[in-house]
């Protein structure tokens, strides 16, 4: 019946349908230019058109119109959502629970408010539906197994995972403790907490992370939106171990899913350098994220804040630069004095680019912070001094080395120059490669979750 309709609809009442304005010939003429324009950043297109106009005035004029349509399409999200919408999911049963309303969308799925269907007990749960369908029984079994490990993680400051499974259509789901609270950074800001109060709040977070680490569970996606503070002032960590669980289910390739879903959800700004590089992740990644969180709580600013206009730039900064001292971000002299030195060193150590130079565990980070609060000497500082001494030796080696190079220059300048160029080029290529990968992952994250 549809096809009859398709046949009979003839826009102009003539037998032959046609594109309304841009006919085939013109379109084919424009095509190479359009391809080129679409590859450009949106902001570059006007300049590009202006450069094209003098030599190809007609093409440029047509393109200007097409690109305006494109810009309008992007702005309005034309046809970006499935024609099916979300309606039917409300009221649907997931395991022993009924979906009540959507709470939001995360990196790899949507989160819903749910309620027990059988009325056994009151209260809500959060239900996470992962964007994966068609999982086989082996993967389903693995999810259940992993989830049963996570379900054993009980800590007053960690939101519980109650259950997990796979729906009939192969979509995995997680049933989690529903927490009403505010992200820790917003909470601290809104209540204008003192530095000591903010550090105490942070210690509760670090202790909870340490508890999980002791059970060999790594969070992998610590960030303020996963660290909530309830109205009673209790810290609750969300989604512990869920990132790992998600990437595990993503490893199962099924015919209905594309490889892009296999990537792990990363949060630019909180992901450690090794995560951005796609390397295996251990507890040190959580220590890094805790370092970012500590910096944010102490200064109100992200360690790479001013350098992080885009995800790409942010990722590049995380991979290649050291954040400045936290105290230097503070405007009030008394605050700056309080943070300068010990707290600067603690934050810097947690944020070390090389994971070996960070605190080995969240427990060590918490212990050092307690030393600071108790006015004991902190370990981060002693280590830093040793590190400075080490660096000093390294510098001297540099002097020795450059002496050798000078000698070589005397022997054959061109050889040395080309060697140096080679080394420089090698380093640049590596940096570029890293930046490119980080870039791709950041773009992927943004593609999966544009609001982050």
């Amino acid at each position, binding site marked *: 019946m549809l096809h009859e309709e398709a046949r009979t*609809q003839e826009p102009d009442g003539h037998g032959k349908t046609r594109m309304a304005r841009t006919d085939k010939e013109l379109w084919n003429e424009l095509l190479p230019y359009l391809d080129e324009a679409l590859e450009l950043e949106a902001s570059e297109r006007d300049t590009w058109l202006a450069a094209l106009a003098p030599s190809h005035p007609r093409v440029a004029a047509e393109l200007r119109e097409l690109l305006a349509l494109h810009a*309008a399409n992007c702005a309005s999200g034309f046809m970006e959502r499935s024609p099916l919408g979300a309606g039917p*999911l409300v009221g649907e049963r997931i395991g022993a629970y009924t979906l009540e309303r959507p709470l939001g969308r995360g990196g790899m799925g949507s989160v819903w408010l749910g309620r027990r269907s059988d009325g056994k007990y009151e209260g809500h749960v959060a239900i996470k*539906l992962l964007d994966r369908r068609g999982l086989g029984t082996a993967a389903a079994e693995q999810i259940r197994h992993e989830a049963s490990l996570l379900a054993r993680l009980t800590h007053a400051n960690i939101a519980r995972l109650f259950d997990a499974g796979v729906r009939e259509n192969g979509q995995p789901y997680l049933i989690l403790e529903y927490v009403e609270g505010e992200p820790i950074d917003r909470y601290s800001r809104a209540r204008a907490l003192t530095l000591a109060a903010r550090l105490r709040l942070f210690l509760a977070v670090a202790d909870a992370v340490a508890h999980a680490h002791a059970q060999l569970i790594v969070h992998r996606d610590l960030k303020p939106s996963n660290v909530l503070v309830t109205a009673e002032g209790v810290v609750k960590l969300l989604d512990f171990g869920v990132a790992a669980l998600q990437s595990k289910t993503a490893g199962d390739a099924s015919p209905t899913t594309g490889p892009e*879903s296999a990537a792990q959800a990363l949060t630019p700004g909180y992901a450690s350098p090794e995560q951005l590089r796609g390397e295996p992740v251990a507890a040190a990644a959580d220590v890094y994220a805790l370092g970012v969180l500590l910096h944010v709580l102490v200064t109100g600013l992200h360690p790479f804040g001013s350098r992080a206009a885009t995800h790409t730039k942010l990722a590049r900064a995380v991979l290649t630069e050291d954040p400045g001292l936290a105290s230097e971000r503070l405007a009030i002299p008394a605050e700056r004095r309080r943070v300068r030195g010990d707290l600067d060193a603690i934050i810097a150590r947690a944020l070390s680019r090389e994971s070996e130079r960070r605190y080995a565990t969240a427990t060590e980070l918490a212990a050092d912070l307690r030393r600071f609060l108790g006015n004991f000497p902190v370990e981060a500082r002693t280590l830093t001094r040793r590190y400075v001494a080490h660096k000093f030796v390294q510098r001297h080696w540099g002097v020795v080395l450059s002496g050798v190079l000078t000698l070589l220059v005397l022997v054959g300048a061109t050889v040395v120059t080309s060697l140096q160029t080679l080394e420089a080029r090698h380093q640049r290529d590596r940096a570029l490669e890293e930046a490119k990968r980080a870039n791709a992952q950041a773009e992927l994250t943004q593609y999966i979750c544009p609001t982050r």
Partner: protein
Amino acid sequence: MLQEQLEQLIRSAEQGEAGSRDRLFTVLYGELHRLAERELRRRPLLTLSPTTLLHETYLNLSTRPGGAFPDRARFLAYACRAMRGLLIDFVRSRCAQKRGAAFEITSLPTEVPQTPAGEELEKIGEALEVLGVDQPRLAQIVDLKFFCGFSFVEIAELLGISERTAQRDWDKARILLRQHLDDTTDAPRGGADPGA
């Protein structure tokens, strides 16, 4: 019987016999609908995504005993067009009945269903029909992406193009569709009544 019929139809459709094209879509449409209904009757709580439905239809058809059957990519290239028809009909019936549609298909849960209503969807369908005459590949990409919910990675693989090309083609298709929609809205044609 059906496999041979399908293979035959696809072959004649590829040779440009207009009648066989329509016959092919009708057959595929019927097959998709039949399978969706069967699955949903068997498991009433199940929701089907278009991609799952397409894959299941393919599995169902290709495992039946019989003669040659098109490969997955070739099958999907045609079946996605039938899926468009199925979805437009489905959304239309959902709009007409508001609640209690014959069956429910759902894609991924999305919190803000900024989805085109029945009428706009039908207009998109019409514009796509026009687009398919001059630019069959662009229309196919719209079917795969918009109506069937395939990702660019999957589309690239199915059509043997790069992911960037798939993305660019999608952008181009949207430009042409937008242009067509704007034109038909500016100058409404009389007589046609899409909201049957």
